[in-house]
């Protein structure tokens, strides 16, 4: 079953076409990797699917709802973790969880049990009442991910979740992603790390706003005669005309 289906989705900013007629489908429970160089249009595409940015043209359904007509219904069913850290730094871990849980309509009881479970898995029991700003980046990212998952969404969108994070934490982060996928959550993730691309069930590579390649890492490696995803990526991304922006 497809939880995301996108057809000819386009976003233009004036004369600049950030996302150019992209078409793909994502199945439920899949880990879908969204790759591309800086400025290829990954974030813009993801922001459209989350209902943060209005598409210029094209069609899309997310979690079974039309992107134009039912954006607010989509929002009940998705989680989003942006590139920029976006928990409240002047609130404690517990208060952040309570805030986002409450916004999604969780009652006090389930907020409490979620909080207990969450801090136990992240081993943050003794930090639960400290302000988020005092946490190291890796912990912040894991916390952001958990908060994006607080309402058990059908799909979670992760925009470069492991940027600037140490290898051990990255490993732990991916364990969390696998667990989420195992529970049936669809994971839509952008990344620059090619070892992470290998972890995905399927990968799409964007070049200059278009989807240049789409398939499982094995299929892509065979198709482009590469030994790893890094080589696949380089072969495709070198064709890019757009600069780094």
């Amino acid at each position: 079953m497809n939880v995301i289906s996108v057809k000819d989705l386009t976003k233009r900013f004036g004369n600049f076409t950030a996302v150019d007629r992209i078409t793909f489908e994502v199945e439920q429970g899949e880990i879908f990797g969204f790759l591309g160089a800086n400025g290829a249009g990954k974030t813009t595409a993801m922001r459209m699917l989350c209902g943060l940015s209005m598409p210029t043209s094209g069609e899309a359904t997310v979690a079974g709802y039309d992107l134009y007509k039912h954006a607010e219904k989509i929002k009940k069913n998705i989680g989003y973790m942006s590139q920029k850290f976006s928990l409240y730094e002047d609130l404690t871990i517990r208060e952040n969880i309570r805030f986002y849980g409450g916004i999604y309509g969780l009652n006090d009881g389930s907020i409490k049990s979620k909080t207990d479970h969450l801090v136990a898995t992240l081993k943050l029991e003794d930090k639960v009442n400290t302000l988020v700003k005092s946490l190291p980046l890796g912990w912040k990212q894991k916390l952001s991910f958990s908060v994006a998952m607080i309402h058990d969404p059908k799909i979670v969108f992760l925009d470069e979740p492991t940027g600037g994070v140490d290898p051990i934490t990255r490993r732990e982060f991916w364990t969390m992603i696998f667990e989420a996928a195992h529970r049936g959550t669809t994971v839509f993730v952008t990344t620059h790390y090619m070892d992470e691309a290998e972890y995905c069930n399927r990968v799409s590579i964007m070049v200059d706003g278009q989807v240049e390649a789409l398939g499982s890492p094995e299929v892509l490696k065979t198709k482009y005669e590469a030994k790893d995803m890094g080589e696949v990526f380089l072969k495709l991304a070198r064709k890019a005309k757009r600069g780094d922006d």
Partner: protein
Amino acid sequence: MRALMILLEKEFRQVFRNPAILRMMFVMPAVQLLIMPLAADYEVKNVKICVVDYDHSSYSQKLIHKITSTDYFTLVDYTDSYEKAITYVEHDEADLVLQIPYSFEANLVREDGVTLFLAINAINGVKANLGGAYLRSIISDFNNEMRLEWIQLPRQNPQPMIDIASINWFNPLMNYRYFMVPGILVILVTMVGAFLSALNIVKEKEIGTIEQINVTPIRKYQFILGKLIPFWVLGLVILTIGLLISWIAYGIVPVGNVLTIYIFAGVYLISILGLGLLTSTLAHTQQQAMLLSFFMMMVFILLGGLYTSIDSMPMWAQIFTKFNPVSYFIEVMRMVVLKGSSLYDIRTHLFKVLLFGLVLNGLAVWSYRKRN
């Protein structure tokens, strides 16, 4: 409803965790209300006068004595050179030059009339105007005294005179503090409300948390209300602190019902906060929001009738003040504090400000985009 409660809980937590806001809540009313009324004084004292006396007669001495015996004037110099006197004006050491002509006394006695010359330093318009007016009234007093001295008053005064006895309603002693303090209180509530609300949403834009809010199913009006209510409460707290300070420091107790002030302030704050939130949804950075609301507040306050009377403004400015919520609150505040106006008396003010509030908040909800 629950989403709104959760939002409010978070906003209040953030306010109480921000020492700058808390400090401002107490320090700003205290400083503005204790120091500004001392400086914002309409009475002109210590007008510096330089007298050029070409006559050196006993009458000219009498006149000078009469002028300097009031505390409105201080004598800078007594000289017999107009050039020298003008240099005082040029160096801003004198505000007025009074020139007493040669044969002042002789002409007064012999020809029943004499012309005095008055040069006014008009750089400070208010001081020049008032100083000149004071001096004129002192000279005319002097004139009457002369007349009394010379003329044996007949039974019927040959020259009919109209004497004016006046009474100042609502502020019998014309204490300008009763007039200024309520107005300054309005400015205080306005500035705190407008700036805090203008900076709030745009701050979430800058740190990126607004994205995280925008991917939730929260409703736009809930979000705006969640921002409005905390600052509404803060505004009323500041009003309370301000009323207490003006009672303790100046003994100002509103003649009218304090509840009337609170009801109006409650409605007024909705419109001012609406303006702030609208600014905040339109601006992209805190700097933009700050400059924009600073500009608007400047205009609203200067054309709000605090320092200058609206009735003496040009027509276009008077029309503008009809759309200026600040001018309504200043008027209401003075009406209730000095005159004891009731809710019924201020009903049109109340409805107009309520209308501003609905329009501005409506615009803020409309211009806040979850998707762009």
